[in-house]
């Protein structure tokens, strides 16, 4: 991780000196254990604040829309680069406006899982081989890294950048082959159970829209939830209002979501959002062989069709 930090800083210095970029979007030290903060190095000396580590959990591609029209560099994991590709496919981003510093990713650690597996407030963590040592006021606990990954990271198929201008380090080996096992598990449950699960997950939503705001693909000028004509869903934290929000949000990301899990990490109520988008991702993969943001210049699946494909809605 230290080597990556150094390499990122070096590349950032170079780009800020003669790469013609206005800023390097990366991560800086956070104010809490297990946190980092998105950071914008605008001057060469600010490159020293950039870091890399197991808690770089945000999808930084989200910030690119705020730099529209200006050339910037971005520190990008596999999922961040997929978002960049997807944004390019939707004409939200020009390839020559972003310099991608690609970083192979071993998966980010879920700070909430860590917190739940120790007997007090976490004050520091460090990695030792494949383990993470977690320390607090009166404890020190050793936990296997693999068990602490975010679910979206544990099931990741593209930990290595799919597109980059400079790729740091060596690509990591893929540790997962079945990304949608949890979706299949849910599919196999009776309808009533699925409805109850959805109602209870959506029911905790407080409509803070953090899921939308952290998402690189949620760039609509006006979100359907804010429309006044028509007002698509009920305004409050009522069952219909909350389910309407979750259905609309997830479905609008059909064929556009890159499985980064940023929405779920941002959610203060720890709502299972990945299981919603995972289903849609699984469907477009199985029905149309499409994976978002993997192939440059591939059109979004709902923008194209094959005349001969199914389902054949005629015969039913």
């Amino acid at each position, binding site marked *: 991780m230290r080597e990556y930090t150094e390499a990122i800083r070096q590349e950032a210095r170079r780009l800020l000196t003669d790469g013609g970029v206005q800023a390097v979007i990366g991560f800086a030290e956070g*104010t809490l254990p297990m946190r980092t903060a998105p950071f914008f190095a605008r001057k060469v000396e600010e490159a020293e604040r950039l870091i890399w580590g197991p808690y770089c959990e945000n999808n930084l591609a989200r910030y690119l829309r705020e730099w529209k029209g200006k050339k910037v560099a971005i520190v990008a994991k596999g999922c961040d680069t997929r978002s960049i590709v997807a944004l390019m496919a939707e004409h939200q981003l020009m390839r020559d406006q972003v310099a991608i510093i690609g970083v192979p990713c071993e998966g980010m650690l879920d700070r909430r899982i860590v917190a739940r597996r120790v007997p007090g407030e976490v004050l520091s963590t460090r990695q030792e081989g494949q383990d993470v040592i977690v320390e607090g006021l009166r404890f020190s606990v050793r936990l296997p890294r693999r068990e602490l990954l975010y679910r979206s990271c544990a099931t990741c198929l593209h930990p290595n950048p799919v597109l980059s201008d400079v790729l740091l380090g060596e690509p990591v080996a893929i540790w997962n082959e079945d990304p949608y096992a949890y979706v299949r598990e849910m599919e196999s449950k009776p309808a009533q159970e699925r409805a109850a699960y959805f109602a209870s997950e959506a029911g905790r939503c*407080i*409509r*803070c829209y953090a899921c939308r*705001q*952290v998402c690189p693909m949620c760039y609509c000028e006006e979100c359907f939830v804010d429309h006044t004509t028509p007002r698509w869903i009920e305004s*409050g*934290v009522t069952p219909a209002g909350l389910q309407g929000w979750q259905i609309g949000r997830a479905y609008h990301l059909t064929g556009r979501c890159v499985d980064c899990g940023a929405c779920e990490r941002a959610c203060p109520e720890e709502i299972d959002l990945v299981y919603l988008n995972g289903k849609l991702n699984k469907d477009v993969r199985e029905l149309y062989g499409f994976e978002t943001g993997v192939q440059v210049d591939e059109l979004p699946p709902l923008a194209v069709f094959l005349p001969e494909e199914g389902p054949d809605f005629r015969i039913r």
Partner: protein
Amino acid sequence: MTKKIDKTDINAFLGSLLQDYALYAPAREAKYVTFREIHAPEEIVWDCLVTREPPKDVFLPQTEVLFSYIRGADGVVVQSNEAVERERIVWGMRPCDAQALLVQDAVFDTAENRDVYYANKRAKTTVVGIGCNQPLSTCFCTAVDGGPFKKDGFDLFLTDLGDAYLSEALTGKGEKLLASPFFHASRKADEKAAQALEKAALEHLPEAMDVKTIQKHLDELVASPFWDEVQASCIGCGVCTLLCPVCHCFDIVDEGTAACGQRVRNWDTCQYCVYTLEASGHNPRPAGRERVRQRLMHKFDYYLVNQGVLGCVGCGRCVQLCPVNLDIRQIVDEIGAAK
């Protein structure tokens, strides 16, 4: 009046309260602990200092029907939803959340234009607090006029002595609870122990911030590029404000048709881009810069002007839960140091 109650008796006592009161307390929900209504004393989680959601929902529900309306022959008839039937107890509120409650009192329970929905719930509620023996690293109540054992706003205040809770009644409502036979006399030593706990807790907490300087700097920084820097990583979600125990902003919306329906109020936040958006398309706070500035200025400047109190109580929820680790403590430090 001060007494104490043994921990072995506490559930029996709470069970007896459930007969007469609706009880709200820190309790588990999904994978975390939040403030919600409970139906059995065993649901209470005693060692959670900062609940995921603050208890403000008890007094200012996130979604609340103000009235229903129905079109009649001679106009529209409205029926208010302001009545509160059942007495309530909020059990185990922390001093920071109580301080926030006092700020909300100053906003809603005013002599003129009294918010009856809030005031009625407040009047029917007994607030039982508990001191914080071991504050978290995100706690900073002492920086903003609070303290881990501050008793303002409580009717009854508990101190965890290990095997018992020292219980001090601060109002008539508190004394009513203390009259229960589950409480027995406390001794001098218990009060000494409580003082020692407070002293120990304070060691973990920061010094008071220089509120005057911060307020002055805020007034000077209105047009400064400082805010462009601060807001750069802000994603414009509502986590910090919706989960803030002080933030009280709301929206009013009709649900229904012209013939009949309900007028509803929902929490709202200054961090949303549509919050100040006018029908004409004009937005007086068009970007993150204005919205982040508004949050800080409201908390550390405008509340002081209008209510005479700070709008931040140091609970640390926004610090813990911000998706991009935008830390209000750091911003305030920078404001204090700004030249």
